[in-house]
């Protein structure tokens, strides 16, 4: 039975749209406006047209940061999404035992973002950290301050620790909603576990998975708090991501350039999200 058509339902959206207008639409329009100005104080701004945009896009630093952010997202997605889906599939046959696992993976989600880095740095501290002392004892030299590869490993590890739970929860919600007879029928037909996943489960969780991919993409692409607290973009800018550059502009009070940068970052994120949704919907119609 489909829902009745009623434009009166718009009235029910008024409170939500009012709030979103104030906290999201107006600020976005304001950033757009700032990005064409040179701003000294909020009352002293000069129109300079797209000058900031040309300056930023001619800056090789910007493209390097863009590359680093894209690489980081790629690494994070290719680790967390398959791992999360696999864990969710393993949890399927566990019945009530799935609940403690869900609680376990949800734990890192309630840690304050600035303490994610704090907890990991303490853990690997060679003086009083459990992992740090173990590594010293085993003779492993882990130097996240000055070795770029180690900084990357640490940020990826901390990010996976932080967000794996979200992937598991959303993927589990998807696969647990598939009626059991579907799988049983496939098993009777002699389908392998891989075939059941490819032809029965995967098509039914694409909705949940696209949300996971989108959320994890934006949050990893614009990672700030963890990356900044771990090594502030170093060593030698090896972990300077887009958001760290943006925050540096805000910190140095060059608001016009910060706004232009914010606009560029937002447009990149939106373009990727839009392309992703388009690809998915053409795939569905075929």
């Amino acid at each position, binding site marked *: *039975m489909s*829902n009745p*058509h009623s*434009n*009166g*339902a*718009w009235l*029910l*959206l008024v*409170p*939500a749209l009012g*709030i*979103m207008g104030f*906290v999201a639409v107006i*600020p*976005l329009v*304001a*950033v757009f406006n*700032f990005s064409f100005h040179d701003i000294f104080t909020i009352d002293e701004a000069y129109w300079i047209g797209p000058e900031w945009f040309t300056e930023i896009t001619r800056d090789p630093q910007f493209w390097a940061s863009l590359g680093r952010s894209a690489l980081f997202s790629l690494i994070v997605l290719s680790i967390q999404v398959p791992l999360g889906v696999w*864990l969710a599939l*393993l949890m399927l*046959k566990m019945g009530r035992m799935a*609940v403690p696992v*869900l*609680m*376990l993976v949800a*734990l890192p989600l*309630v*840690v*304050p*973002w600035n*303490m994610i880095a704090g*907890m990991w740095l*303490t853990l690997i501290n060679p003086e*009083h950290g*459990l*992992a740090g002392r173990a590594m010293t004892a085993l003779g492993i030299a882990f130097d996240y301050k000055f070795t770029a590869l180690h900084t990357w490993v640490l940020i990826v590890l901390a990010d996976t620790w932080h967000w794996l739970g979200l992937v598991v*929860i*959303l993927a*589990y*919600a*998807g696969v*647990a909603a598939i009626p059991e007879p579907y799988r049983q029928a496939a098993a009777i037909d002699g389908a392998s576990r891989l075939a059941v996943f490819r032809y029965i489960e995967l098509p039914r969780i*694409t*909705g*949940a998975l696209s949300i996971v991919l989108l959320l994890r993409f*934006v949050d990893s*692409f*614009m990672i*700030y*708090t963890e990356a900044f607290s771990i090594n502030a973009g170093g060593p030698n800018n090896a972990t300077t991501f887009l958001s760290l550059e943006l925050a540096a502009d*805000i910190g140095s009070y060059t*608001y016009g350039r*910060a*706004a232009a940068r*914010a*606009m560029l*970052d*937002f447009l990149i994120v939106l373009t990727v*999200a839009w392309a992703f949704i388009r690809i998915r919907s053409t795939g569905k119609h075929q």
Partner: protein
Amino acid sequence: MSARGLTLRAVVFGLLALFILLPFAQTVLLSFTLTLPREGHVTGAPTLLNYAEVWARPDLRGSILNSLTYVTLNIALCLAAGLPAAYAFARYRFTGDRHVLFALLAFRLTPPVVLSLPVFFLFARFGLVNNPVGIALVHCAFNLPVAIWILESFIAAVPREYDETCFIDGHSLSGFFFKRLIPAIAPGIGVTVFFCFVFSWVEVVLARILTVTAGKPITMAINALYGFRTDIGLVMAMTVVSLIPGVAMIWFVRNHIARGFVIRT
């Protein structure tokens, strides 16, 4: 389940538990350890002094209250605005409904750093800086879309005949919302509260920029503890305290946490 399946799961989830719990174990361990020398105590000794200090310092105690205030306000706002919107999406078709849903998703995808600058100027004009209402409002940009999404899927799971019976029984729209609909989707409310909490309690960028002189949240209170000679034991004790409400939330929604995200295609 076969013996092989059982062993595989025991190993996999054992390793997962180790990976996830290790940083927590470290944190709890250090929170009970003396890490800065004090009169009459040796460093490294087990102690309750860190927790005593969290309790004794008004800035730390105050930050917990500040965080609780704006998180509660944010949850109230998200439910008050999100429930009617979710009801509209779950029960009616209307011109532009899909577009509005996509626009909401786009806002959830806006990076907080992008919004921080104009939000500060805008909120300063309305006296919302250093004010818990400001943080509660700005977190809605991220929590309201998620709340609408979760609530919509729970409302859609309730058959429409249920609404119709209630209206025939003589309930007004508001009476129906409070006396019938909310009890029927209580688990959905719980899951929504959990996910609003999870963002609002732990978010750093916007909460920092909107608290210049007063109303510091728990995250900023922890940051302020880092300095020339950081008492890492105290930092960890404060972190443990900041985890308590979140862990309690997980416990309350444990049976429903994965149910809010079933996406109907």
